């Protein structure tokens, strides 16, 4: 069975590109476009990997991790997606429980490799 990836990203332009990429890599991809939707889908699907845009329209993306954690679920790996490379953003994401922070646009081969290694 394909590994499950929950892609949390509000921009259709970006999630369509990443979904196409990850599906081409053989992953089973579900998209959530708000923090609320991500929390619901996270608990329902129990993904192996979560790719999490930290700026979402309804809440801070990192709140998704906190909610899932409070409900007793932690994805196999969570990678934050952000447009900001500063070390403050990075520390905030790592402290919230992300395994790594990826700067958008993430080079596609790098993203496939990271997700593949996370589910290996």
């Amino acid at each position: 069975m394909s590994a499950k990836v929950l892609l949390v990203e509000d921009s259709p332009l970006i999630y369509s590109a990443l979904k196409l990429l990850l599906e081409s890599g053989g992953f089973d991809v579900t998209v959530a476009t708000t923090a609320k939707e991500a929390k619901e889908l996270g608990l329902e699907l129990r993904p192996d990997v979560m790719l999490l845009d930290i700026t979402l329209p309804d809440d801070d993306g990192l709140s998704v991790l906190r909610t899932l954690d409070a409900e007793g679920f932690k994805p196999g790996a969570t990678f934050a997606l952000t447009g900001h490379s500063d070390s403050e953003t990075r520390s905030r994401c790592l402290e919230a429980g992300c395994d790594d922070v990826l700067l958008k646009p993430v080079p596609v081969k790098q993203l496939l490799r990271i997700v593949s290694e996370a589910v290996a």
Partner: protein
Amino acid sequence: MSEVETSNPPSRLEPATDRISALESQLAESQRLIMELKERDALKTQFLSNISHDLRTPLTAIITHAEILRDGILGDVTMKQRESISTIITGGRQLLDMIAEILMHARDSSEPLTLVESEFSIHEVVEQVTSLNESLVAKKGLSLERYLSPSLPAVRGDRDKVIHVLTNLLGNAFEFTPGGGRVWVDAGMSPEDPEHVVLIEVGDTGRGIAPDHHELIFREFAQVDSSASRAHHGTGLGLTIARRFVELHGGRIWVESELGQGSRFFFTLPVKRQGE
């Protein structure tokens, strides 16, 4: 040219209270104008911040789709197709860098930047920045040399901002040095204050900068060649931001150069220790 009269000279007979009242009213009006300008400036910054985010999003999608095509994830591509797609990606990434510069400048104008300090090694920073540029150096046929004093102490400062300065100076050196040329980074203690100040040099054998332009290049939006047909493009903010970052650390940045003689950019960073 006639002078514009802004107010009538005070009459000796005019009661002092009237004059004070007029001044108070002028002061109130000035304060109102200052507030209005500040509000407009904040709006402009917010606009630039929003537009930068909105520009980044489609660009990110364009670059990601182009990389999917270039890397053959959806099927084979010919060598020529790959070259063409690679140009889309390079152009897209250049645009992203320019958007980041404009946003940083806009933010700094309205809400001055601060340092996020930590202790770090200049050796590691130089290694990180130079290794990221190795493929570009090889592609242009340049030689990149590093001269790092083994006795450099750890520096306390904002690592991201120092990386930004070094990346900018090296990026300019690579851009303005023709193939076969040399670019170098030299870091050691400053001869002027060998106990407290680190001096970093980024030099090149490129086309050089006329002395008349040594100050101009650090001014915002300034470019030595401002014609529309100029060969080198950019926001004209790179060195302005570099200077701002160096000065935030209490350092200094300058250039020594002559046309046709290459350029040597220098910046200093005070060595601060924990608690200083």
